[in-house]
């Protein structure tokens, strides 16, 4: 349940001004991509973005209140096979400026309050260890306590984080149990699939949304394509595990362009408002 084969960057910065889009092969000005929400202006290809940037383009300006910022990863297994987990954690923290692979908080989307989490593929492929599990569980409980809809942006090529062993696996159980509380409280949970979402993340919180939205072409599955190809010795169908394929197979409700995600969330918040549960 860990995959090593996803390149975190889907476009390679070339001379600092122009870059070659990995999808359409066109030379595009980096500035134009950045001003277009990191979407290729010529072919609409959605490049992966970090968690801070996601918050910036999703939440109403100045409304973001990050929560649970004091929770940091440790190295419970003293995992030191080939590379030291402790060292890798330190490097990831320096490179990304975040404590672990998720940021959580609350704020407004189109003037509506919501609890929001974003996993970050730049941090060990967005894999889930104790910190990701704990923060997602805390956020779910926060949503219940404050009667808020919950939105989680998932993007993880790593699934459950290998370096924390079965402790990571159990975070699947922990986050799913916490989401059961959201479910029973009658609150809306929208899961947004970004590229790529696999393994222990897809087999827990990412697929438990009341509504599951995917960015165009975002890949989601349990087992990664390379593993399937190698173990089954088969050719994969075109577009396998991409958003459109998953929608056609009933695994995703709707594909939404990055720029339309906030307005779609507002619509969903309006349609699916919590009903009063008496005696609770």
């Amino acid at each position, binding site marked *: *349940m860990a995959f090593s084969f996803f390149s975190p960057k889907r476009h390679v910065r070339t001379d600092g001004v122009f870059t070659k889009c990995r999808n359409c092969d066109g030379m595009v000005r980096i500035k134009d991509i950045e001003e277009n929400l990191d979407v290729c202006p010529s072919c609409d290809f959605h490049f992966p973005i970090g968690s801070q940037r996601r918050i910036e383009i999703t939440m109403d300006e100045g409304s973001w209140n990050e929560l649970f910022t004091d929770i940091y990863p440790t190295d419970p297994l003293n995992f030191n*096979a080939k590379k030291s987990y402790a060292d890798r954690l330190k490097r990831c923290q320096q490179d990304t400026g975040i404590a672990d692979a998720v940021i959580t908080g609350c704020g407004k989307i189109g003037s509506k309050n919501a609890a929001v989490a974003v996993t970050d593929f730049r941090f060990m492929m967005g894999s889930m260890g104790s910190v990701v599990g704990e923060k997602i569980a805390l956020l779910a409980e926060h949503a219940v306590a404050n009667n808020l809809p919950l939105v989680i942006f998932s993007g993880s090529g790593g699934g459950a984080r290998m370096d924390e062993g079965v402790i990571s696996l159990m975070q*699947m159980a*922990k986050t799913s149990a916490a989401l059961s509380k959201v479910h029973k409280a009658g609150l809306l949970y929208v899961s947004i699939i970004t590229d790529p979402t696999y393994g222990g993340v897809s087999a827990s919180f990412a697929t*438990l949304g009341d509504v599951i939205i995917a960015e165009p072409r975002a890949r989601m599955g349990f*087992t990664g394509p390379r593993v399937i190809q190698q173990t089954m010795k088969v050719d994969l169908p075109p577009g396998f595990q991409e958003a459109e394929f998953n929608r056609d197979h009933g695994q995703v409700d709707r594909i939404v362009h990055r720029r339309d995600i906030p307005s779609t969330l507002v619509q969903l918040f309006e349609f699916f408002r919590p009903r009063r549960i008496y005696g609770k």
Partner: protein
Amino acid sequence: MAKALQDRSDYLDFERPVVEIEQKIEEFETLAKTNNMDFSEEINRLHKRRLTIIRDIFRDLTPWQRVELARHPKRPQSLDYIERIFPDFLELAGDRAFADDAAILTGPALLGDIKVMLIAQHKGRDMKESIRCNWGSAHPEGYRKALEKMRLAEKFRLPIVSLIDTKGAYPGIDAEERGQAVAIATNLREMSALRTPIVCVVLSEGGSGGALGIGIGDHVAMMENAYYSVISPEGCAAILWKDAGKAPEAAAALKLTPADLTGFGIVDAVIPEPPGGAHRDPDEAAANLKQHLISVVLELSRTTETDLLARRYEKYRRIGFYADLSSQGAPDSSPES
């Protein structure tokens, strides 16, 4: 008379001394019978020697050797235990959606005189069974069938007994198309709140999400020579060293043995196996498992539903190790603190 050593595939390298002495014992027993002679003293001595040999080998098993034991070709599987513990098992197959998946067997059964719902992963003991059971790797319909039957158990408040033994959920195109991820995720969410006791035992291989998909319970135990891991040692080795041959090193790093997992607060009990492993005496292994199940099911049946659900939530909610910098003096959270 002297039989050649058993088929190479039937024992592990480190078991060789055990196999040798067992064959010597067998030789003496045959000799005694055919010649009508008394070798009981010699045989007793060999039996004692056998136990000493086993104790010496098993005292210092490496994590990888334990993985090898868990995958032993002669190791008892779910149906071996079911035959011995649940002769009244009434298999009910329907997932009500797509197809039957024999990688997970489900149905009511009697545990002594307690009615339970049995959910059991089975790998297959011969080629025919293995093909039928897909070597214990379930498709989404297997997880959905399990949930159907667990809901039936909840309706009549039958305790659920879940026997886990899988290398992992099936990694195929069709499994992906039918939602392997969401099938497992749904089970995790629903099992966390199912209003009936759930008892889980990892019999041999606890292969990642495929095991966890029927593995949420009020009490989770492992057989002494089982392992439970987030990724197979081979898979881990392939990622870290690009070499599946480093699986023994990976097995050690992953901390996947019952002792490790008890230490992390993930596993509640370890069920002892007969000397040399469950395959040396499946009857004794089954008796130990049965005794364990009865005592845990009885204890959980005395718990009120509210307590049961609160404790189950808390059990999973507290698993995790991290530093909380806001709480001074307690940098490490752990199941114990």
